[in-house]
């Protein structure tokens, strides 16, 4: 290997810093604290920030909506129930307060859909946004009040021969000179459930025995029209006049139930006959109408020993879109107001009226006047003073609104604004959850720190106690609390705390176990620090981040718990709570789904937001994740 000689001369070296002193240079990076770092890392997590924003908006709304919204959510307003959510004007097709229904029975007389609630026909017509009537009627075998046509089914109710059944009219009188006629239309249609067309006869019965009859058509399977000149029949039988009932008999048979179908039955007579009106009542043109009148005790009543029903009654159906606001608040219903009311409106200058002239004198002077026109007036007999008027006007004015209300989320079964109810419920639930979590936090920290810090026998005993309590299903614990102490906010807080604190305590205990063996704690102890100082100054500040974030996640749990209790009929009573509102509206799911869907979405939103927010906080405060991103 080649040998190299290196020589150093004194001039090769020079002092680096012969004149100035060396100082540490200032760090260029900014100093940061644990909190600042946590916030920075939290902000990096986009979804958590979004969740925090949503949460903030929901909390602000739950505080301000109940204060600012003018709607009343305490008194029950049944007429205003189940109004659809409305944001835009009716007819825009989306979020416009209209309700779409399909396959609803159509009232052919009034030409409106047959609704279960009674509204005036004019108002109903004005409220309809669209109406499509199915031109083909459906044939049904029950007597719907809006059905028409069809056949009367007269059927036997046993399969024992000889057990004939009959249908009979009220007693009617006939005589020879007034040209009485009977016209009955039968049908030979098959298709009545488990029965067969059978033998029948038609006769007039005028006495008590079975012989006192005048047979018009004897037992047969002849289903052709029966058109009899009753007067001629009377003459042929040698009778001058007759007081009789018309009978339809159906012969029973052993092999099947027997029936006969009657489409129409009408009596006619010369104009001179005295009982034309009675005859008309006993006649029926429309079988469905006859069955619907069956319970009315009049001449039209037909008694029956067998089964009397309807077959192939025609029922029209329609699809419609209706503006629910117009229906409830619209113009149309006649309302009776006292004269004092009217007088007060006149005094306020809203309208003018002179009862001597009558309804025509009404003049509307201000938009605030609740009525549009006076239909009739009532005058007391002696003093000739006006006592009351019947007027037509916009219903919302009669209900006390200045203008037609608009509910963003619609109304529930009590006619309460869901928007306000939802947020005031949310406020109660959030309040409950925060209070419960805060109490749990305090109890949990105390319990957990004692248990975790002292360890040993203390820890063992406290742990067994927690395990025992924790093993009782929460539903059992809550039930017993509520049954023993009643149902109010205070009991709810205590009961929820009783269920929830064990969890917080266990989290706190784990934190104490984690930090109490650390060197810095040992160092502090060596320097003579007391337990109190070690717990509150050294261990707790390190562990508290985890405990707090667990508490945030716990808020979502408590809100869920409260709602679950409400679904189990143990919900908070006496104040609006979110869970109670949800469970109350659950029953409307099939008919008025908006009442439950909107709150459900909000519930889902708040739960997701709380969980995301809590997870974000947990990640941000978790020291082991520091610097990992």
């Amino acid at each position: 290997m080649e040998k190299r000689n290196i020589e150093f001369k004194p001039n090769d070296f020079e002092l680096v810093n012969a004149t100035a002193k060396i100082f540490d240079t200032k760090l260029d990076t900014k100093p940061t604290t644990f909190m600042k770092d946590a916030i920075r890392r939290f902000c990096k997590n986009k979804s958590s920030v979004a969740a925090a924003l949503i949460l903030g908006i929901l909390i602000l709304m739950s505080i301000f909506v109940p204060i600012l919204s003018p709607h009343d959510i305490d008194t029950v307003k049944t007429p205003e129930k189940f109004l659809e959510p409305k944001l835009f004007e009716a007819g825009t097709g989306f979020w416009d307060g209209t309700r779409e229904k399909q396959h609803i029975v159509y009232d052919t007389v009034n030409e409106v859909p047959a609704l279960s609630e009674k509204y005036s026909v004019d108002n109903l017509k004005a409220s309809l946004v669209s109406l499509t009537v199915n031109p083909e009627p459906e044939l049904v075998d029950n007597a719907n009040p809006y059905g028409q046509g069809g056949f009367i089914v007269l059927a036997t109710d046993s399969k024992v021969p000889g057990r004939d059944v009959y249908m009979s009219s009220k007693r009617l009188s006939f005589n020879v000179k007034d040209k009485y006629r009977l016209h009955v239309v039968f049908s030979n249609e098959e298709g009545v459930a488990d029965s067969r067309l059978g033998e029948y006869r038609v006769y007039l019965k005028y006495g008590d025995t079975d012989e006192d009859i005048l047979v018009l058509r004897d037992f047969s399977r002849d289903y052709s029209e029966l058109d009899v000149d009753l007067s001629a029949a009377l003459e042929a039988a040698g009778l001058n006049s007759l007081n009789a009932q018309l009978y339809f008999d159906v012969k029973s048979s052993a092999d099947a139930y027997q029936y006969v179908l009657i489409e129409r039955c009408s009596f006619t007579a010369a104009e001179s006959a005295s009982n034309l009106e009675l005859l008309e009542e006993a006649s029926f043109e429309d079988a469905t109408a006859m069955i619907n009148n069956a319970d009315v005790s009049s001449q039209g009543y037909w008694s029956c020993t067998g089964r009397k029903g309807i077959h192939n009654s025609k029922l029209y159906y329609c699809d419609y879109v209706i503006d629910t606001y117009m229906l409830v608040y619209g113009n149309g219903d006649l309302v009776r107001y006292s004269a004092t009311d009217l007088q007060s409106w006149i005094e306020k200058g809203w309208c003018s009226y002179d009862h001597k002239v009558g309804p025509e004198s009404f003049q509307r002077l201000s938009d605030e006047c609740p009525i549009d026109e006076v239909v009739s007036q009532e005058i007391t007999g002696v003093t000739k003073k006006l006592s009351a008027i019947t007027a037509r006007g916009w219903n919302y004015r009669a209900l006390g609104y200045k203008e037609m209300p608009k509910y963003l989320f619609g109304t529930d079964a009590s006619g309460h604004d869901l928007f306000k109810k939802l947020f005031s419920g949310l406020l109660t639930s959030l309040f409950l959850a925060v209070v419960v979590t805060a109490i749990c936090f305090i109890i949990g920290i105390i319990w957990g720190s004692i248990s975790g810090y002292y360890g040993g026998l203390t820890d063992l005993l406290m742990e067994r106690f927690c395990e025992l309590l924790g093993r009782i299903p929460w539903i059992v614990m809550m039930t017993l609390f509520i049954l023993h102490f009643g149902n109010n906010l205070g009991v709810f807080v205590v009961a929820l705390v009783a269920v929830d604190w064990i969890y917080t305590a266990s989290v706190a205990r784990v934190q104490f176990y984690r930090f109490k063996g650390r060197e810095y704690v040992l160092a502090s102890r060596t320097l003579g620090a007391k337990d109190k100082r070690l717990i509150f100054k050294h261990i707790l500040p390190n562990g508290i981040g985890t405990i707090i974030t667990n508490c945030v996640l716990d808020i979502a749990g408590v809100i869920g718990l409260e709602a679950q209790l409400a679904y189990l009929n143990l919900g908070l009573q006496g104040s609006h709570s979110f869970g109670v509102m949800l469970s109350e509206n659950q029953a409307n799911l099939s008919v008025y789904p908006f009442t439950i869907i909107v709150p459900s979405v909000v519930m889902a939103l708040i739960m997701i937001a709380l969980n995301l927010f809590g997870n974000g906080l947990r990640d941000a405060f978790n020291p082991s994740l520091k610097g990992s991103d």
Partner: protein
Amino acid sequence: MGKYILKRLGLGFITLFLILSITFILVKMLPYARPIGGDQQQIAYFEKQYSLGYVYRFDYAKDEAEFGEPLYVSPVQNGKANYYYNIPALKQYANWVKNIVTKWDWGYSKSYQPNVSASVIIRSRIWVSLRLSLIASIISIPFGILLGIWAALKKNTATDHTISVLVMVGISIPSFILITFLLRIFAYKLGWLPSTWPTDSAAFGTKFKGYIIPVVSLCFGRICSYCRSVRAELCEVLASEYLLLARTKGLTRRQAIVRHALKNAMVPIFPSILAAFIAIFTGSMILETLYSIPGLGRLYLSAITLKDWDLMFVDMAITTAYGMICGIFLDLSYGWIDPRIRMGAKK
């Protein structure tokens, strides 16, 4: 091991005994609710209670003093009436335990189905709840675990993120909200599934369809929570050094994951499965109410509504005991799944 099992079972039963005693006393302290029905039913009820040792009947031959407010006075027969008095809760509890142990007699319903034995009522209802709970477990455990494994293996890819978002949503949404949406969409809007639990006489197809909504709503949250814990555990294990060693010594990725990672990842997951198993039982209470399933949960609610405390207590006892026994068995299964955990071994 045998000694440990015995100790665990023993401790479990002591806990169960304590919990039942506490709840029994608390239930007995509730305001007394008279059975419904006419005198015949009431007499039958109180006679039964007397023979089982839950009430005291005034004995004309022995007793002379007035005891206080009787629970019930029967109509006068043969010149005398029967007076029934309450007896202390602890004594009743002792009799209750004695009756179950010696005669398997769980007491009688007061107003839900008057004078019908509680065990008969429970027996007619327990199977529906158990069946639903089992079906939900059978479906959700494999699905949840598979989804979790998938997400962990594809960590930080689009698949993982999608699954994570779904899991977040699934865990957050309460089950009753989920049922509401399922009912609205599949039962009312589309009409594919029945909107209530089919009756016993329904056709097989309808019965089968009737299971879909309850099972899905039970499974959804479970699958999500299993998936989340499996993913978290597996990610941790996959980053561990022993797995790197396994790869270095020549195992393929598949071998390393199946033989080493999965088995170790499963250990901490078992407690969550246990918790979910119990929760399914109580969680189905709301489901049973909303879907009118004739199970234990709805029975519990009916018992509360009708103030049938005796029946409520039996239901409580069964739910509690079920949870405890599940807990014991799952604790024992730790040793089987992870041999390092020697159950009951000294330090």
